[in-house]
Protein backbone atom coordinates (compact mmCIF):
# COMPACT_ATOMS: atom_id res chain seq x y z
CA UNK A 1 0.00 0.00 0.00
CA UNK A 2 2.96 2.32 0.65
CA UNK A 3 4.17 1.70 -2.92
CA UNK A 4 0.68 2.47 -4.28
CA UNK A 5 0.61 5.65 -2.16
CA UNK A 6 3.99 6.65 -3.67
CA UNK A 7 2.86 5.87 -7.24
CA UNK A 8 -0.32 7.94 -6.93
CA UNK A 9 1.79 10.73 -5.40
CA UNK A 10 4.11 10.68 -8.43
CA UNK A 11 1.09 11.10 -10.74
CA UNK A 12 -0.17 13.88 -8.45
CA UNK A 13 3.19 15.67 -8.54
CA UNK A 14 3.21 15.62 -12.35
CA UNK A 15 -0.39 16.76 -12.73
CA UNK A 16 -0.13 19.54 -10.14
CA UNK A 17 3.12 20.88 -11.61
CA UNK A 18 1.51 20.96 -15.05
CA UNK A 19 -1.59 22.63 -13.63
CA UNK A 20 0.46 25.33 -11.86
CA UNK A 21 2.45 26.01 -15.06
CA UNK A 22 -0.68 26.05 -17.23
CA UNK A 23 -2.34 28.37 -14.70
CA UNK A 24 0.59 30.80 -14.88
CA UNK A 25 0.55 30.76 -18.70
CA UNK A 26 -3.21 31.34 -18.70
CA UNK A 27 -2.65 34.27 -16.34
CA UNK A 28 -0.22 35.69 -18.92
CA UNK A 29 -2.94 35.49 -21.56
CA UNK A 30 -2.34 32.16 -23.39
CA UNK A 31 -6.02 31.25 -23.65
CA UNK A 32 -5.52 28.10 -25.77
CA UNK A 33 -4.66 26.17 -22.60
CA UNK A 34 -8.08 26.38 -20.91
CA UNK A 35 -9.09 22.81 -21.80
CA UNK A 36 -5.77 21.50 -20.48
CA UNK A 37 -6.28 23.40 -17.20
CA UNK A 38 -9.73 21.82 -16.81
CA UNK A 39 -8.30 18.31 -17.37
CA UNK A 40 -5.34 18.79 -15.00
CA UNK A 41 -7.67 20.18 -12.32
CA UNK A 42 -9.72 16.96 -12.46
CA UNK A 43 -6.61 14.77 -12.37
CA UNK A 44 -5.09 16.74 -9.46
CA UNK A 45 -8.30 16.46 -7.43
CA UNK A 46 -8.69 12.71 -8.08
CA UNK A 47 -5.05 11.83 -7.39
CA UNK A 48 -4.87 14.12 -4.32
CA UNK A 49 -7.91 12.45 -2.76
CA UNK A 50 -6.53 9.01 -3.73
CA UNK A 51 -3.07 9.65 -2.27
CA UNK A 52 -4.58 11.21 0.86
CA UNK A 53 -6.95 8.27 1.40
CA UNK A 54 -4.11 5.74 0.96
CA UNK A 55 -2.03 7.77 3.41
CA UNK A 56 -4.86 7.65 5.94
CA UNK A 57 -5.05 3.85 5.57
CA UNK A 58 -1.33 3.25 6.21
CA UNK A 59 -1.02 5.89 8.93
CA UNK A 60 -1.90 3.69 11.98
CA UNK A 61 0.88 1.19 11.10
CA UNK A 62 3.35 4.04 10.69
CA UNK A 63 2.19 5.75 13.89
CA UNK A 64 3.22 2.85 16.11
CA UNK A 65 5.65 0.56 14.27
CA UNK A 66 7.74 3.27 12.60
CA UNK A 67 7.19 6.48 14.52
CA UNK A 68 6.32 5.19 18.01
CA UNK A 69 8.97 2.50 18.22
CA UNK A 70 11.79 3.89 16.07
CA UNK A 71 11.54 7.55 15.02
CA UNK A 72 10.47 8.95 18.39
CA UNK A 73 13.37 7.10 20.04
CA UNK A 74 16.20 7.54 17.53
CA UNK A 75 15.19 10.18 14.93
CA UNK A 76 12.75 12.60 16.58
CA UNK A 77 13.25 15.17 13.81
CA UNK A 78 11.79 12.64 11.35
CA UNK A 79 8.67 12.26 13.54
CA UNK A 80 8.23 16.04 13.54
CA UNK A 81 8.87 16.34 9.80
CA UNK A 82 6.32 13.60 9.11
CA UNK A 83 3.68 15.36 11.22
CA UNK A 84 4.41 18.61 9.35
CA UNK A 85 3.93 16.72 6.09
CA UNK A 86 0.58 15.21 7.08
CA UNK A 87 -0.80 18.52 8.36
CA UNK A 88 0.36 20.47 5.31
CA UNK A 89 -1.25 17.79 3.11
CA UNK A 90 -4.50 18.19 5.07
CA UNK A 91 -4.36 21.94 4.42
CA UNK A 92 -4.06 21.27 0.68
CA UNK A 93 -7.08 18.94 0.60
CA UNK A 94 -9.90 21.54 0.45
CA UNK A 95 -8.22 23.44 -2.40
CA UNK A 96 -7.68 20.22 -4.37
CA UNK A 97 -11.37 19.30 -4.00
CA UNK A 98 -12.45 22.85 -4.91
CA UNK A 99 -10.25 22.71 -8.04
CA UNK A 100 -12.33 19.76 -9.26
CA UNK A 101 -15.61 21.67 -9.10
CA UNK A 102 -14.32 25.11 -10.12
CA UNK A 103 -12.06 23.72 -12.85
CA UNK A 104 -14.82 21.78 -14.62
CA UNK A 105 -16.39 24.93 -16.07
CA UNK A 106 -13.41 27.26 -16.04
CA UNK A 107 -13.65 30.13 -18.53
CA UNK A 108 -10.75 32.54 -17.83
CA UNK A 109 -11.98 35.19 -20.31
CA UNK A 110 -15.51 35.37 -18.97
CA UNK A 111 -14.79 34.84 -15.26
CA UNK A 112 -11.51 36.58 -14.31
CA UNK A 113 -12.48 36.54 -10.61
CA UNK A 114 -13.04 32.79 -10.66
CA UNK A 115 -9.84 32.31 -12.64
CA UNK A 116 -7.82 34.24 -10.01
CA UNK A 117 -9.24 31.96 -7.30
CA UNK A 118 -8.54 28.89 -9.45
CA UNK A 119 -4.93 29.97 -10.11
CA UNK A 120 -4.21 30.66 -6.43
CA UNK A 121 -5.77 27.33 -5.39
CA UNK A 122 -3.59 25.59 -8.02
CA UNK A 123 -0.42 27.24 -6.70
CA UNK A 124 -1.28 26.48 -3.05
CA UNK A 125 -2.09 22.86 -3.92
CA UNK A 126 1.22 22.55 -5.79
CA UNK A 127 3.13 24.01 -2.80
CA UNK A 128 1.53 21.57 -0.37
CA UNK A 129 2.20 18.64 -2.72
CA UNK A 130 5.83 19.66 -3.31
CA UNK A 131 6.47 19.94 0.45
CA UNK A 132 4.64 16.68 1.15
CA UNK A 133 6.55 14.69 -1.46
CA UNK A 134 10.00 16.07 -0.59
CA UNK A 135 9.47 15.57 3.16
CA UNK A 136 7.98 12.11 2.52
CA UNK A 137 11.11 11.14 0.58
CA UNK A 138 13.34 12.48 3.36
CA UNK A 139 11.40 10.58 6.03
CA UNK A 140 11.40 7.29 4.11
CA UNK A 141 15.14 7.63 3.46
CA UNK A 142 15.83 7.44 7.21
CA UNK A 143 17.21 4.05 8.24
CA UNK A 144 14.38 1.99 9.69
CA UNK A 145 13.37 -1.63 10.12
Amino acid sequence: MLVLHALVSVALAGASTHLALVGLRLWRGERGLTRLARIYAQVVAATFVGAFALGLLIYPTFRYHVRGVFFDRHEPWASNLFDMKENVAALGLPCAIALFFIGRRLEPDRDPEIFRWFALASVWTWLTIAFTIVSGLVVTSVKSF
Partner: protein
Amino acid sequence: MDDAAAARLRLSAAWALAVAGYALAFLVSSVVPTPLVWYFPLERRFSFEVRPSALAMDFYGRVLLSVLSGAVVFALARLALRRTGPEASRQWVRRALAWSAALLVFSAGLYAFVLWHRAVTPAPLPEGYVPR
Protein backbone atom coordinates in the same frame (compact mmCIF):
# COMPACT_ATOMS: atom_id res chain seq x y z
CA MET B 1 -23.61 38.68 -17.53
CA ASP B 2 -25.79 35.63 -18.28
CA ASP B 3 -27.40 33.35 -15.68
CA ALA B 4 -24.82 30.60 -16.14
CA ALA B 5 -21.92 32.99 -15.46
CA ALA B 6 -23.68 34.39 -12.36
CA ALA B 7 -24.28 30.82 -11.12
CA ARG B 8 -20.58 30.01 -11.62
CA LEU B 9 -19.63 33.06 -9.55
CA ARG B 10 -21.98 32.04 -6.73
CA LEU B 11 -20.58 28.50 -6.77
CA SER B 12 -17.00 29.80 -6.67
CA ALA B 13 -17.83 32.10 -3.75
CA ALA B 14 -19.37 29.15 -1.87
CA TRP B 15 -16.26 27.01 -2.53
CA ALA B 16 -13.92 29.79 -1.40
CA LEU B 17 -15.95 30.18 1.81
CA ALA B 18 -15.93 26.39 2.32
CA VAL B 19 -12.11 26.37 2.09
CA ALA B 20 -12.01 29.18 4.69
CA GLY B 21 -14.39 27.19 6.93
CA TYR B 22 -12.24 24.07 6.63
CA ALA B 23 -9.05 26.00 7.41
CA LEU B 24 -10.67 27.79 10.37
CA ALA B 25 -11.85 24.50 11.91
CA PHE B 26 -8.40 22.97 11.38
CA LEU B 27 -6.69 25.93 13.04
CA VAL B 28 -9.13 26.34 15.96
CA SER B 29 -9.12 22.62 16.78
CA SER B 30 -5.31 22.75 16.84
CA VAL B 31 -4.94 25.69 19.24
CA VAL B 32 -8.05 25.29 21.44
CA PRO B 33 -8.60 22.01 23.35
CA THR B 34 -11.40 20.51 21.26
CA PRO B 35 -13.14 17.14 21.63
CA LEU B 36 -12.12 15.06 18.61
CA VAL B 37 -12.38 11.52 17.34
CA TRP B 38 -9.12 9.78 18.35
CA TYR B 39 -7.91 6.46 16.93
CA PHE B 40 -5.91 4.09 19.16
CA PRO B 41 -3.78 2.04 16.71
CA LEU B 42 -2.72 -0.59 19.26
CA GLU B 43 -6.21 -1.21 20.60
CA ARG B 44 -7.84 -0.62 17.18
CA ARG B 45 -10.66 1.48 18.58
CA PHE B 46 -12.01 5.02 18.25
CA SER B 47 -12.85 7.37 21.09
CA PHE B 48 -14.30 10.90 21.31
CA GLU B 49 -12.35 13.01 23.80
CA VAL B 50 -10.10 16.04 24.26
CA ARG B 51 -6.92 14.28 25.47
CA PRO B 52 -6.28 10.54 24.95
CA SER B 53 -5.12 8.29 27.78
CA ALA B 54 -2.82 6.12 25.61
CA LEU B 55 -0.98 6.19 22.28
CA ALA B 56 -3.53 7.67 19.87
CA MET B 57 -3.86 9.75 16.68
CA ASP B 58 -6.05 12.82 16.29
CA PHE B 59 -5.47 13.24 12.54
CA TYR B 60 -8.60 11.36 11.43
CA GLY B 61 -10.75 13.35 13.84
CA ARG B 62 -9.25 16.71 12.91
CA VAL B 63 -9.65 16.10 9.16
CA LEU B 64 -13.21 14.85 9.71
CA LEU B 65 -14.10 17.92 11.78
CA SER B 66 -12.58 20.24 9.16
CA VAL B 67 -14.34 18.50 6.25
CA LEU B 68 -17.68 18.66 8.09
CA SER B 69 -17.13 22.35 8.92
CA GLY B 70 -16.25 23.10 5.28
CA ALA B 71 -19.38 21.21 4.13
CA VAL B 72 -21.62 23.14 6.57
CA VAL B 73 -20.13 26.49 5.44
CA PHE B 74 -20.59 25.46 1.80
CA ALA B 75 -24.27 24.58 2.36
CA LEU B 76 -24.91 27.82 4.27
CA ALA B 77 -23.10 29.88 1.63
CA ARG B 78 -25.14 28.26 -1.17
CA LEU B 79 -28.32 29.19 0.69
CA ALA B 80 -27.21 32.72 1.57
CA LEU B 81 -25.87 33.51 -1.92
CA ARG B 82 -28.92 32.07 -3.72
CA ARG B 83 -30.27 35.44 -4.78
CA THR B 84 -27.02 37.42 -4.74
CA GLY B 85 -26.15 39.45 -7.81
CA PRO B 86 -22.89 39.06 -9.75
CA GLU B 87 -21.16 42.04 -8.10
CA ALA B 88 -21.94 40.85 -4.57
CA SER B 89 -20.81 37.29 -5.48
CA ARG B 90 -17.59 38.71 -6.91
CA GLN B 91 -16.95 40.54 -3.64
CA TRP B 92 -17.61 37.36 -1.67
CA VAL B 93 -15.09 35.48 -3.84
CA ARG B 94 -12.47 38.17 -3.09
CA ARG B 95 -13.19 38.23 0.66
CA ALA B 96 -13.28 34.45 1.00
CA LEU B 97 -10.10 34.15 -1.04
CA ALA B 98 -8.28 36.56 1.28
CA TRP B 99 -9.57 34.78 4.40
CA SER B 100 -8.81 31.29 3.16
CA ALA B 101 -5.31 32.30 1.99
CA ALA B 102 -4.53 33.91 5.37
CA LEU B 103 -5.89 30.94 7.35
CA LEU B 104 -4.12 28.30 5.24
CA VAL B 105 -0.76 30.07 5.30
CA PHE B 106 -1.01 30.88 9.03
CA SER B 107 -2.04 27.30 9.93
CA ALA B 108 0.80 25.79 7.88
CA GLY B 109 3.29 28.21 9.45
CA LEU B 110 2.01 27.52 12.95
CA TYR B 111 2.29 23.75 12.48
CA ALA B 112 5.78 24.09 11.04
CA PHE B 113 6.89 26.26 14.00
CA VAL B 114 5.32 24.09 16.71
CA LEU B 115 6.48 20.79 15.23
CA TRP B 116 10.00 22.06 14.59
CA HIS B 117 10.35 22.65 18.35
CA ARG B 118 8.40 19.60 19.57
CA ALA B 119 10.07 17.15 21.95
CA VAL B 120 8.54 13.72 21.32
CA THR B 121 7.97 11.03 23.95
CA PRO B 122 8.70 7.52 22.59
CA ALA B 123 6.07 4.82 23.04
CA PRO B 124 7.09 1.91 25.34
CA LEU B 125 8.75 -0.92 23.42
CA PRO B 126 6.66 -4.05 22.93
CA GLU B 127 7.42 -7.02 25.18
CA GLY B 128 10.23 -9.19 23.81
CA TYR B 129 11.30 -6.54 21.30
CA VAL B 130 14.87 -6.97 20.09
CA PRO B 131 16.35 -3.91 18.36
CA ARG B 132 18.10 -4.57 15.04
